[in-house]
């Protein structure tokens, strides 16, 4: 018994978060198809499911402390620092966005359970993706997560924009998946391996100078598949349309969870698989970073739809995060810091949007928030904090993350990147400050009326804004966590 499971590496704790989410999904499904369940039961079941997931993630830390970096299920599931941080981040995203997505799901009455199941399944898929050691496993996780997101985008069937968003997301997403699979195939063809660690071992075995071109192209295709998910330019075209069309209450979850998992996987790929050949990717990553920040800034400058604006800002932020990931181990830690502070601000902004415009709305014009400050002081202040955080104003976490990232780039002597990133930051102030101006300063006739904010929303926004300020003043704790994540890969 023990021997078989040991040989196969079967360990249920390591996939426990995924299992916990699956269990929740099954319970929810069971509730819906058998008896008519009241709403609050569904709410508690899903919330308890999320808490259970967080608890199982906590259990994984224990496993990591005893076993260290280790692989399970015949080298398909990996337990390392990246997996742990990624798991925690996905769990936190679930926790912080629960409020939004629950209220949205509650509104689409006949499909509440479907929506919850889609969300929890996508989370389980992304968790699997983060944990994957094998590229095939990675692909499966990515697909489980993504397909649920496609459906989630089009859940509000009465809305034309929502339908359009779902279809676009699906078509372009499947294209990206094709390319991703093709990349795996190319690597398998050239090296006969399909693992994260195997790749680096193979490369070190044949020597970085003798790596065949097919491997390189395969790796690039895999990376491009992931870049699509984080909406880095030039693969960003889907993001604004999807963000705009999808129900506002879901966008916060959709945007953050895909970004978190893809970036963690990218970071692991760079830190582990590409260690010996990372120099040769400099130009590639540099081109993507510069394209991302420039395209994002140019597209965002004249945007009148706030959801599209945030989508383009996401393109810029992806560029920033990528610049760190491709520049050394401390760059990865800086990027992770950036990623964490960014998703906090992103969740906060989409929570604000969904409070103002309703959970199911699709497009969200800048005129919707004109004169917001007059009646809704709390919302405007938290919104401003998040926007200033995205812009990178000192005293917010956005400044510290940019500062750490850029100083690291400077020490790697990437002066061109530093210049471009700084200039983009300056340009960024233009379109990040404009919504604040419209909301708080500009004189206007039709002021937004007082919006009833639930206490849970207030608590959530308060916590997120406080975290934004806290990491801006005392970033030490978070910096140490991200340093711990990469320490083993120096």
């Amino acid at each position, binding site marked *: 018994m023990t021997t078989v499971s040991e040989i196969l590496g079967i360990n249920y704790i390591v996939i426990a978060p995924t299992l916990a989410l699956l269990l929740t999904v099954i319970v929810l499904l069971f509730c819906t198809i058998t008896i008519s369940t009241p709403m609050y039961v569904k709410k508690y079941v899903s919330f308890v499911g999320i808490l259970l997931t967080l608890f199982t993630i906590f259990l994984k830390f224990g496993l990591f402390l005893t076993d260290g970096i280790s692989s399970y299920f015949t080298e398909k599931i990996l337990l390392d620092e990246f997996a742990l941080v990624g798991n925690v981040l996905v769990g936190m995203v679930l926790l912080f966005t629960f409020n939004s997505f629950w209220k949205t799901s509650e509104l689409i009455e006949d499909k509440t359970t479907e929506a919850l199941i889609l969300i929890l399944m996508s989370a389980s898929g992304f968790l699997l993706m983060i944990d994957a050691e094998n590229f095939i496993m990675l692909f499966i996780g990515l697909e489980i997560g993504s397909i649920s997101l496609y459906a989630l985008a089009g859940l509000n069937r009465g809305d034309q924009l929502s339908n359009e968003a779902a*279809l*676009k997301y699906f*078509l*372009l997403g499947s*294209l*990206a998946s094709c*390319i991703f699979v093709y990349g795996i195939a190319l690597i398998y063809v050239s090296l006969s391996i399909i693992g994260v660690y195997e790749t680096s071992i193979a490369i070190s075995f044949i020597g*970085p*100078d*003798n*790596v065949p*071109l097919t491997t*390189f*192209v395969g790796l*690039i*295709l895999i990376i*491009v598949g992931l870049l*699509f998910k984080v909406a880095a330019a*030039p*693969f960003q*075209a*889907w993001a*604004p*349309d999807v963000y705009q069309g999808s129900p506002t209450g879901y966008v916060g979850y959709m945007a953050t969870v895909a970004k978190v998992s893809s970036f963690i996987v990218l970071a692991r790929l760079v830190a582990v698989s590409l260690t010996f050949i990372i*120099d*040769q*990717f*400099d*130009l*590639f990553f540099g*081109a*993507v970073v510069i394209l991302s920040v420039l*395209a994002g800034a*140019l*597209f965002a*400058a*004249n945007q009148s739809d706030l959801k599209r604006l945030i989508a383009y800002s996401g393109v810029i932020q992806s560029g920033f995060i990528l610049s760190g990931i491709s520049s050394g181990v401390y760059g990865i830690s800086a990027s992770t810091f950036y990623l964490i502070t960014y998703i906090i601000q992103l969740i906060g902004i989409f929570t604000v949007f969904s409070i103002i415009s309703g959970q199911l709305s699709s497009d969200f014009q800048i005129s919707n928030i004109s004169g917001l400050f007059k009646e809704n002081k709390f919302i405007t202040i938290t919104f401003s904090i998040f926007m200033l955080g995205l812009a990178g104003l000192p005293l917010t976490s956005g400044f510290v993350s940019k500062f750490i990232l850029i100083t690291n780039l400077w020490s790697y002597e990437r002066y061109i990147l530093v210049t471009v990133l700084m200039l983009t930051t300056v*340009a960024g102030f233009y379109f990040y400050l404009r919504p604040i101006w419209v909301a708080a300063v500009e004189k206007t006739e039709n002021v937004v009326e007082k919006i009833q904010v639930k206490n849970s929303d207030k608590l959530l926004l308060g916590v997120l804004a406080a975290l934004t300020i806290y990491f801006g*003043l*005392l970033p*030490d704790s978070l910096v140490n966590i991200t340093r711990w994540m990469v320490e083993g890969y120096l």
Partner: protein
Amino acid sequence: MYQEVKLELIFILPIFLPFLTAVFLFLNKKLFNELITNFFTLNSALLSFAIAAYAFIALGLDKFKPIKVELFQWISNPDISIGFTLDGLSGIMLILVTGLSFVIQLFSTSYMEKDENHCNYFVYFNFFVFSMLLLVMSSNFLVMFFGWELVGLSSYLLISFWSKKPAAAKAGNKAFVINRVGDFGFLIGLMIILDTFNTFDFYKILQNTTGIAESTITAISLFLLLGAFGKSAQFPLFSWLPDAMEGPTPASALIHAATMVTAGVFMLVRISPLLQHSKIASLLIIIFGLITALLAAFSAINQFDIKKVLAYSTISQLGFMFIAIGAGAYVAAIFHLVTHAFFKALLFLGAGAVIHSMHHEQDIRKMGGLRKKMPITASMMGIGTLAISGIPPLAGFWSKDEILASVFVNGGIYYVFWALALGAAFLTAFYMGRHWLLIFEKDNGFEHSDVAEAPKAMTRPLLLLGIFSIFIGFINTPFFHGLEKVLHVTLENVEVTHLPKGITLVVLAVLSIGAGFTGLIIAFLLFGMELHKRINLKKFKLEGPINLVKDLSSNVLYLNKFGNFFFVSGMKNLSRKVAVVVDGMLIDGSVNFVSTAFNKSSKITSSTQTGLVRNYVVYFGLFLLLLIALFIATPLVSR
């Protein structure tokens, strides 16, 4: 260990107690009447003084070994943290600030009675005390800079307290703007420090001065010196202080006489381990100190505003402290700071009492003969006058004599400096004697029937300060080096100039006493006995020179007018030209160009976002191929 922890905690309290009081009073401004406000503010001041005294005594029992508390580290590299320290130097300042704050607040309760913004006054006052303590208790330059800026702010608030008066609002602005020049230098100094030492911590910086190039140290010292000049009203940045007298008199007593203006002196003593390595900086300090001391003393001769005389006298005395620092006598500088704080606070509060009794009349020509009406005030101000003139055994004598002797002992060119400083001491005695005589003695033919002695809440602080002005000098005499022992650890690595021994010291002391007495006697002859009316001035052809001196003195050598003409008007014209040519055409033009170009290119790129999936797929494929091509073109890739 236990003892240390307790003490560390306790010396933080006096810093934040005034802040809490300020916030508390501010929040309950509408609720509290004068009595309740007074109750809170006085008790809080007394409590912080008691804690400060306890901390100081405990420190003394521990042989003045510095205690450092780091509240938290903000950034680890470069090392920037928020921390406080208690050593001999900051301990003295702690006692001084909290003690004087209590005494002066006691005086203020009566002086500010029935003012419509009574509570606001105490809010600002407490806020000032907090900022000043932040400045002196800091263990690094960053916190010191916070305090430095905050005392500027609270000083601005208090100068323009009666902002309905245009003069007060203007004076506040002037003080703020001139201080900005100094702060600018201070900030640059801080940046050089951070660049050189990679930390702001005093101990880490001041103990690592050996390996640093002298030019760097000189640069740091000179820029910090500019800050000290601004805050301590030294030539050429002194003209804000006389104008600052528009504020309430007790506030002037604390801020513009006893504490805030000495911040520059305090800071220079704090960085003395750096300063001693820079000969140029020391020489500049002593020269500018001398210019200030002489200029301000000369300007005080023919002033008629009761507070302006004291303001110029403050500037002059600050000049003496700078002279001491320049001569390397850091202990003497702090000693004079302490004694000056007491007798100048006494003089200011006395002036306040006079102004109060005269129903806010400040012209000393309209006073005269007040001695019989206000005996306590007159005698206490008399003590203050004697003390500042350097008459033994009052406080001023000991400190001033120590400064003069320290300058003398350096030799060489310093003999000239000593003679000039002695001249300034003589002038000091002269104008202070005139000041007292004009107010209290000389009969100007005014009937002061409604003038009476100030209320007890005012005379009691005067009596207290009077006693201190007599005896505070004994903390550091040639026979008992008390202050030197207190500052011993702080100035451990610093070469402090010591007093000469034996007969030289006695001769120097006699000379400085002589200067003081001569000044007072001449003042008495001129203004007490009115000698100039009895002798025929025309006969000796003295009328012209005397009028010239009077004119120059009351116009401060026309320095203000020169400054106004040269800097203010000149700058206005220049800035107008800059605004039109450089800003309007060059900068605005290029900025507008950039922004329109950005907007246009943004519109062009936006048109590529068609919303059609087929276009997106084309972009996807195209850019993928481009990226792969780019990758293959990378020179490093092996084929």
